[in-house]
């Protein structure tokens, strides 16, 4: 082959090989998981040890929030991913959007009792925006559905 062509071909092959290896390694990485926070399930599986700082993410379980202390700044609630639960304790002011049934992300560590001691609480907002009326209408609809389901003897 013409030497100049050969050079070009070598470079092209090298880059192609590089891209393939890159893609391969990225796939490996995704298999291993890159998440920056852990779900309650992962916590329950024992992926983290007590005392380590990490970030947990989940939903605030309906009806689980308990406020204590003088100004209600000692807070305890349960973070859930519907599969497993982790109880979280936090002292401080909560962000406005902290609601039951909403996403939450917390920094902190597990104590010996398996309670997550949070140092910071952040509210994660979901992707849906709606006006209050729409929401209540929707909620009403859901409640009706739920009642209907109850009436039919099924567990919601």
């Amino acid at each position, binding site marked *: 082959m013409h030497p100049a062509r050969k050079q070009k071909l070598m*470079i092209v092959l090298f880059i192609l090989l590089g891209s393939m290896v*890159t893609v391969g*390694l*990225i796939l490996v990485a995704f298999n*291993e998981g890159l998440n920056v926070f852990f779900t309650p399930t992962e916590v329950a599986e024992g992926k983290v040890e007590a005392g380590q700082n990490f970030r947990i993410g989940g939903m605030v379980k309906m009806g689980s929030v308990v406020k204590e202390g003088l100004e209600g700044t000692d807070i305890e609630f349960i973070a859930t991913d519907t599969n497993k639960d982790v109880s979280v304790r936090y002292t401080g002011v909560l962000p406005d959007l902290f609601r039951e049934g909403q996403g939450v992300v917390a920094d902190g560590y597990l104590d010996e009792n398996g309670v997550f001691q949070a140092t910071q609480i952040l509210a994660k907002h979901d992707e849906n925006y709606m006006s209050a009326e729409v929401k209540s209408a929707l909620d009403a609809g859901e409640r009706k559905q739920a009642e209907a389901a109850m009436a039919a003897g099924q567990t919601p």
Partner: protein
Amino acid sequence: MNLSGSRQTLGTGASLAATLQRELLIILRSPGDIVNPLMFYVIAVSLFPLGGQADAEWLSGIAAGVIWVTALLAVMLSMESLFRSDYEDGSLEQLLLSPQPLYFHLLVKVLGHWLLTGLPLVLLTPVLAMMLALPGEAYWPLLLGLLLGTPTLNLIGAIGMALTVGLKRSGVLLAVLVLPLSIPVLVFGSGMVQTTLNGLPYTGLAAVLGALLVMTVSLAPLAIGAALRISVN
């Protein structure tokens, strides 16, 4: 022409080896280029115990971050010597006009630079990690991360250096160009240490670092070459 009988045709590989050898010889002749970045690394890392608290727990908390960030800065400062003398004495023009493939020559040049500045930096790291009370289990991911990460940083730095070698004052500008692009390496590299400290496997992150390395190895020479052509203009 006097092509005597001793003439030996070289393939691309041998010609690359010659470039590597030249690179190493040149750096070895000016030890300041090797020693100064290392000195910077040591001094800058030791600033942190002084600037913050000095208790072991606090230190081990910041160790990985500090080591990675300082290594990044040191690598960047060490880039200053790459291409600079070649630019000034005209060797760069010769390289650009050489009939050999520029792509591989540039790769080899950066490799030579890494061998004499990046590698010593990695080898020095355990000492600094000890000074910062890094827990024992984090040494391996730290070193592996730096081994995979510093060549990437060198390649990114080489792009920046190639872009600024024609300018008179390039120090800060180089940093401004190169640091943002190096952030991913930093994030995954120090992430490896952090995950280990959290008791998790670091293979995923190491794979990402490897992917970044392979990607820059295959693409950076193109950018470096284009940038050098602009700089000699």
